Each structure stands twice: as structure tokens, then as C-alpha cells.
């Protein structure tokens, strides 16, 4: 085994905040925006204003924001069915996202995609995806394209612990490695795929990141609820990818606080224990990061409240914007089948 196949497990020292103030604020605000956005999605869904499936990202915010805060605007990202957090972290606008949730014409996709397909090509967001593992090839291809055009762009492929068992992972990871493509494969291990524990269906010793060894790419296992650790890992891996050193696998260990999707029952009564959930709740990435900002003297309680009020207002405005936007007219149904 070469050195690059070693699995590095990383988390940061809770007593410090080794990021500058503006970046820290940005990370905090993005994480909180995701949290408030998802709470609003839960609400509109419960009110019957949104149909389809709502897969909430609540609890996993540090993963999306830690990674995306290491990216440039023109870097690429592929997302998943649980994609709202990735989109917001990459710069997606919450009003247009919310309108898309409701199938309205001012939504990102003019109401044609909905929660599982939001894209913003101008931000390199190549789309959420309804197919588990569906974005892996695409991210690899976007990285290939960046490399062929000498653009210096990297691609981030977000996927879950469930998706790592898709054949697409093997094919894409091998291709990315053999061609040294600038892709970050980011597995968000929230320990469940729907209602099945990852450990019951995934043949690894301890970490899914062990699979990277089979593709001769470096792997890092990160405390995915620690935005600092995720950010630092991403910075290092993005730098490596931009330097032409190829892909990597990052495993962010995290937890979704809600069910698989809104309305599918209480997870703690069925496939997981309250005790386990409580352990993860104690590691909620948002208060954790807030405490560190306070300790570093960047913010105080009052300011945190102000930030929250601003973000909550922004999300409320997004909901109003979405409610007021009309449905697309029936004539649009045949638009955009072909470019």
C-alpha cells in the first residue's frame, strides 16, 4: 500500500476557530439558511403547498457548506435527492428554489423539475438527481471537460452512503482516477439509506472511504458535523485536484435529524434509536459552530439572534415569492423537450 491509500480521520479542535471572520460568518449564515429553508419546506409541505417528496437536509449542513466554501463560483457540483443544502451552499437563490418546490413558473426550472431536479447552470450546479448515484458520471464528465478546456475547474459529486453501492460509483471513480480528473467524491454518510442501516448493507470494515483504496485515490474520513474540519479537508483536496493530482474520496460522517422524507413516520419508532439520535443532536453542526464563533469573539448572543432574524426573514420572503408566483401555463408543457 502506498501512502496515499491511508485513511485520514479528521476533526478540528473545538476550542479554536482557525478561519477568518468573514469566512466564518459566511459558513455560519449558509448553514443557518439551509436549516431555516428546510424548516420552511417542512411547513409548506405540511400545509399542502408542496407536493412530491421532500428529503430534508436538516442536520447535515456542515457537509454542504464546508465543501462548497472551498469552491469557486464556476466549479461544478452534482447533487442528490437530498439536495437543497448543496444548492444553497453553492449559492442557489432561496426564492427561486422555493418557487420550484411549489412547481411555480419563477422556480429555477420553471416548475418542470421540482425538489429533486433543481439546477442552476450559471453556478455550476448541474442538478439534484432522483436516481441514487445518478450524478457520479456527470460530475466525472464535468471534471473531464474542465481538464480538456484547461479551465482549472473542479467538480464535486455529493452522494449518500446508499449510493456508494451503485455500480456507477465504481465506473466513475475508476475513470476519474485513471484519467486524473479533478473530482471530489463526497460521500455524506448519514448512516441510513431510506430505512436501512448502511452498516447492514455495505461491505467495509469501518468506513465507506476504505473503498478509495481500490481506485488508488486518497480518502479522508471527516467529522461531517464539524464545518471547520470539512472546509479544511475540502481546501486541501480542491488544491490537489486543481494541481492535476486527481480525484479523492471524502466521507463526511453525519446524520439526518428528520425522516428519509417528510411524512414517512418517526424514525426513532422504527429503524433507529432515540439514544443514537440524541448523540447526534448533541453534535448539531450549527450551535457547535456558533459556540466557536463566540469563543473567538466574532459574535455574541445578540448578534446571533440578529443573524437568525435576517435569515428567517429571507426565507419567509422566499415563501411569499413562491406563493405569489403562478403555475406555468399549459402551453409550456411541450417546451424544452429539445434544446
Amino acid at each position, binding site marked *: 500500500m502506498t501512502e496515499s491509500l491511508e485513511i485520514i480521520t479528521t476533526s478540528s479542535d473545538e476550542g479554536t476557530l482557525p478561519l477568518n471572520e468573514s469566512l466564518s460568518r459566511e459558513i455560519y449564515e449558509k448553514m443557518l439558511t439551509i436549516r431555516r429553508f428546510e424548516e420552511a419546506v417542512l411547513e409548506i409541505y405540511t400545509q399542502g403547498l408542496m407536493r412530491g417528496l421532500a428529503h430534508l437536509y436538516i442536520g447535515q449542513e456542515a457537509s454542504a457548506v464546508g465543501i462548497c466554501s472551498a469552491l469557486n463560483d464556476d466549479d*461544478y457540483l*452534482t447533487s442528490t435527492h437530498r439536495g437543497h443544502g448543496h444548492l444553497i451552499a453553492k449559492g442557489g437563490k432561496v426564492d427561486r428554489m422555493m418557487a420550484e418546490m411549489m412547481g411555480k413558473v419563477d*422556480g*429555477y*426550472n*420553471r*416548475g*418542470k*423539475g421540482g425538489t429533486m*431536479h433543481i*439546477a*442552476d*447552470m450559471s453556478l455550476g450546479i*448541474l*442538478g439534484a*438527481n*432522483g*436516481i441514487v448515484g*445518478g450524478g*457520479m*458520471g*456527470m*460530475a*466525472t*464528465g*464535468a*471534471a*473531464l*471537460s*474542465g481538464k*480538456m*478546456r484547461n479551465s482549472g475547474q473542479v*467538480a464535486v459529486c455529493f452522494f449518500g452512503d446508499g449510493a456508494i453501492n451503485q*455500480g*456507477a460509483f*465504481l*465506473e*466513475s471513480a*475508476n*475513470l476519474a482516477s*485513471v484519467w486524473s480528473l479533478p473530482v471530489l467524491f463526497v460521500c455524506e454518510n448519514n448512516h441510513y439509506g431510506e430505512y436501512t442501516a448502511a452498516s447492514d448493507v455495505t461491505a467495509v470494515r469501518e468506513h465507506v472511504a476504505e473503498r478509495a483504496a481500490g481506485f488508488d485515490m486518497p480518502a479522508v474520513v471527516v467529522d461531517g458535523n464539524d464545518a471547520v474540519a470539512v472546509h479544511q479537508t475540502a481546501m486541501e483536496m480542491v488544491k490537489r485536484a486543481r494541481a492535476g493530482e486527481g480525484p479523492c474520496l471524502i466521507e463526511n460522517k453525519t446524520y439526518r435529524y428528520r425522516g428519509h422524507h417528510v411524512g414517512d413516520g418517526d424514525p426513532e419508532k422504527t429503524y433507529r434509536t432515540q439514544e443514537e439520535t440524541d448523540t447526534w443532536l448533541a453534535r448539531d453542526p450549527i450551535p457547535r459552530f456558533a459556540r466557536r464563533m463566540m469563543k473567538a469573539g466574532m459574535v455574541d448572543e445578540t448578534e446571533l439572534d440578529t443573524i437568525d432574524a435576517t435569515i428567517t426573514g429571507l426565507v419567509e420572503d422566499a415563501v411569499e415569492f413562491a406563493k405569489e408566483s403562478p403555475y406555468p401555463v399549459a402551453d409550456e408543457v411541450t*417546451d*424544452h*423537450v*429539445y*434544446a
Partner: protein
Amino acid sequence: MSTPERVITYGEAVREAIAEEMRRDETVFFMGEDVAAAGGVFKVTVGLLDEFGDDRVRDTPISEAGIMGAGVGAALTGMRPIVEIMFGDFITIAMDQIVNQAAKMCYMTGGQASVPLTIRTTIGAGRSSAAQHSQSLQAWLSHIPGVKVAIPSTPADLKGLLKTAIRDDNPTVIYEDKMMYALKGPVPDDDDYTIPFGVADIKREGSDVSIVATSSMVHTALKAADMLEQEQISVEVVDPRTLSPLDMETIVRSVQKTSRAVVIDEAYQSYGVTGELASRISDEAFDYLDAPVKRLGAMDVPVPFSPGLEPETIPDEEKLVRTVQSLFHDVPV
């Protein structure tokens, strides 16, 4: 003034189309299994690596889903990839990337994204390649909105349609009959020669019956037409050339003239291209028909290996002649 022509093979048409488009547009690149150094298992892409280098002509791992996915991603982000799937049978492994991703990106994103991806793959039985290397699965992708499908029968059509596909901003699929790579034919000597999708071609004019034929079956139809001419049955052979979009106008116009139609395609007969064409002709030209629309496809069995069995399963000119005759008088079909 007509453009001067050269005679080339169906395989050379592939190579010329790719090379010309790669010279014309530096975002075009080509990848697939064994396509670069070896020039493909059918040797039709020999020479491309030498001219364009290994950045733009790529040998890939044996990963149909992976390379199709990479094609989709590259197409979404400013490139124009051409992906070869060696045998059309293997496209099954890449189906998610074509059907759920490439075909729907433009629509699902409300027109934000486009996927200028060209897929080349093969169809056709007749070389004892058995059940996993002989199928004609063109109906599968023709069923999917968002994909364009071409099924050329001559070197000229192949070259013109492939060049159009590469320039098109949508996912396009070119089905090449692997038995026709050595087929020769005239091709206009013009780097900008293209054929639009959705324009059928009358391969032979006639007045008594229209045979609508695809790919290799165009040649079967032309042979049948020669045979039927001796019985004073004048056959018009219509080649749709693209299945999606489909030029029903030309097909209907032909049937209005002849009042009889037979549809022939090399794929399994059930639930396929012949069913679609026959149904649309019956629907759109009903008032002009003097007989029911007949159709001929491959037998609904996996393609057998044995030279004693395989030909039985594929439509040929004898079967086609009998089918046409049955429209005029009682014959055992």
C-alpha cells in the same frame, strides 16, 4: 450544379464525419472502448488517434455507464462528446445515463441545460454473434422524448446524419448496422455536407406499394422491389432515416400515392418500430389504403447462434416479396 461525389464505405463515412467535425470544432471529442489505438472493433475509427491525439480520441475502461455518464457531464459543460457503445446490446448498461439523465436534462431544468452528446452504436444480426451481440434495439431509445435517433442505411446518409448529430445541441443516437460497414456508396465531396433529422428519403420510386424500411432492410426492400418489378408490381421504398423525429409527411404522401404499405425493420417485431410505423400509417392514411398495413420484423426469439437458425429469424427479401404479394392476391405468407 451538383457537388462532386466520391465512393466510400459506410465505415469510412463514420471516420470522415468524426474527423471533419473534430477539425471544425475543437470541443468535439471521441471516446469508447478500444476506439483509439485499435481503431474500434470494426476498425472504422482507425487513424483518428494519429490525427487528433489521445486527449481528444480516448480509449476508455469497459464501463458503459461510466463513459456515458462522463459524456453527459462533458456535454453539459461545454464539450461535444461522441461516445461509442461497441455493440448496441451493451447500451442496456448505460440506460440510466441516457434515459434518466441526458434525455431529461433540458426539460427538467426548464431549458437551462442542454446535452450535445452523440452516441454511436451498432445493430444488426447476420454474423452468428448470438443473442447478446446481434440485437437491433432502436425502438428503446426512440421511445424516449428528448433523444433524437438516426438509423442510416447508406454511407451518404450515415455521414450526413452523423455530422448533423454532432452539431445538434441534443442527445442523439446513431444506430449503425455492423453488417454494412463495408457497403460502398457515393457521398458528396463537401466538408459541410449534412442531412437534417426528420427528413425521409425515397430510395426508389414506385406506384403500387410503399415499403417503409430502415437500415439494412432498405437494401432488402430494394432487392424485393427488383423481384416484384418482374410481376408488374411497382414498389416505392421509403427510408425514414431518423426515427425521432419521424417524417410522417413523406411516408403518408407515398402511401397516398400507392394505397398499400408494408413496414420492415430488423428489430424484434413486437412492440417496436414496425408497430409504431404501421399504426401511424393506418391512422394518418386510412382513407387512402386499399389493404391493411403489413409489417415484418425479426422473430420474437433471442437471436440464435447457429448459421442454420439465425437467418430464419431475420426478415429477408423472399419473406418481404411474399408479404407484398399478399396485398394484391392470395399467397401463402
